[in-house]
């Protein structure tokens, strides 16, 4: 009999992000191992149906975020009742809460009512989730951590923060790196020709692409053929376009727009170096994908990035300051052979440490164990 696992995500397809992609790929890869999946997620700004099938998986959307934003307690309670009824009817053995977000407010009572085990995938820094400060006593994050049967953290950094919030997490947690499909053959080095610096991700303040522009401005004049590619979209795009124009970089900066998951490898392979000046990160998929493509990464020392990028070996870790970022970019652009060496080392490390099969095996073991321990 298949293990019934409900994946709870704040957002899901067609919304694009690391968490959404992780959930979709995990379900596709684990289904052949004897799992039946369903998804519960929140409506957001897109006009999507309440019920839909995604690659054979039933997806149910609820207006959680809207109910919380309007602060109408009647709406809140109605949605809680509806999702409790949904979980009681579908009867999952395990609920995989894919990250801590506002909809967890509805998840906890639903899990309790269904008598399911709760596995939390922690994929962001808890400090970030609380607006940049250590979560205050009496927070949803604390409540979620206290309610889980196991925490699978995507990075050691996030798990350390979670344990500082609730020490008991240390006894029921593990680090499970997300994993990435890495080609068996070593990747080609960065293409010759004008240097291309690629930033890939949602255009939001957390990604630090404004710092990327400021850093690029320091090297653009001496490298007129160089290009900075911002691949993605988001609410910060207009501001970034204004910044690029104000810095006189309009001709050298490309705003590529959304990148479909199937296009990521191509976009990263076209890079001379990948730049990730993030202000906060969990274990970013872009860094893993860059390693799989054999590209060196210049990255900030935040979140799980130092767990992927080994300074001086697979890339360079820098302070979040345009001058430091620019110096790191110059170091790699000025030494293409060094950048290629680091990219190759990144590929080897991805195969050794971030093997996709290892991630799947870890989740398979956790889900089976928790299904058997179901409350």
């Amino acid at each position, binding site marked *: 009999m298949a293990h019934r696992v409900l994946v709870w995500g704040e957002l899901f397809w067609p919304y694009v992000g690391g968490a959404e992609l992780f959930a979709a790929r995990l379900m596709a890869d684990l289904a052949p191992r004897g799992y039946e999946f369903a998804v519960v997620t929140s409506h957001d700004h*897109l006009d999507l149906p309440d019920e839909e099938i995604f690659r054979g998986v039933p997806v149910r959307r609820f207006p959680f975020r809207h109910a919380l934003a309007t602060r109408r*307690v009647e709406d809140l309670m109605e949605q*809680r009742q509806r999702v409790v009824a949904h979980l009681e009817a579908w009867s999952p053995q395990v609920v995989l809460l894919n990250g801590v977000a506002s909809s967890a407010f509805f998840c906890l009572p639903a899990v309790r009512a269904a008598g399911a085990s709760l596995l939390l995938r922690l994929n962001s820094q808890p400090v970030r989730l609380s607006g940049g400060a250590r979560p*205050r006593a009496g927070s949803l994050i604390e409540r979620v951590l206290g309610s889980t049967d196991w925490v699978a953290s995507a990075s050691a950094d996030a798990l350390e923060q979670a344990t500082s919030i609730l020490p008991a997490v240390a006894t029921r947690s593990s680090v499970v790196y997300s994993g990435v499909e890495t080609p068996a053959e070593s990747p080609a080095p960065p293409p010759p020709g004008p240097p291309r610096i690629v930033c890939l991700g949602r255009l*939001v303040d957390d990604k630090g692409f404004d710092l990327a522009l400021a850093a690029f401005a320091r090297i653009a004049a001496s490298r007129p053929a160089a290009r900075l590619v911002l691949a993605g979209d988001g609410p910060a795009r207009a501001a970034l376009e204004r910044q690029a124009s104000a810095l006189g970089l309009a001709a050298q900066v490309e705003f590529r727009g959304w990148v479909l998951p199937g296009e990521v490898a191509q976009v990263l392979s076209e890079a001379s170096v990948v730049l990730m000046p993030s202000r906060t990160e969990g274990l970013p998929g872009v860094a893993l994908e860059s390693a799989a493509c054999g590209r060196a990464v210049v990255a900030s020392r935040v979140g799980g990035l130092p767990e992927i990028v080994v300074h001086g070996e697979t890339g360079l870790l820098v302070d979040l300051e345009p001058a430091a970022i620019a110096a790191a970019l110059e170091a790699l652009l000025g030494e293409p052979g060094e950048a290629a060496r680091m990219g190759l080392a990144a590929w080897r490390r991805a195969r050794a440490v971030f093997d996709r099969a290892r991630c799947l095996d870890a989740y398979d073991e956790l889900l089976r164990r928790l299904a058997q321990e179901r409350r």
Partner: protein
Amino acid sequence: MLGLQHRLRRREDDVVAKIMDGEVVVIDLTTGVYYSIDGAGAAIWGGIEDGLSLGEIAAALARRYQIESARAEADVLRLAAELAAEDLVVVADAAASRVAELAASADEAAQAYVEPRLTSYRDMEDLLALDPPTPGLADLRWKE
């Protein structure tokens, strides 16, 4: 300091609440903090909303759950103090004492006594702000 003689009332202008299935969800509209009250707390909250004094609530609690009065009084006063500390309730005008029963849902009478618990969620606003709308997704469909 609150005593058993006090009656409390919800700060109607700024605090909204709803009881459902033995749990209360409370929202402070001025701070954006969410709360839940469970265990016997739902019954206590209902007594507050019905205008009972804390002593009347404790007495009714002791009768319903067959627990010692001292325990009921201690739990009622503790929860009342927490609610007041969160500025969810204020002291109401005095009224004549009476023997009252707490409103109960159909299955509450059969439940064992569970200590009242007030849980706060102070990070809801931060969490809601984390995922702002992202443009250009309407026509983006994964094909992998």
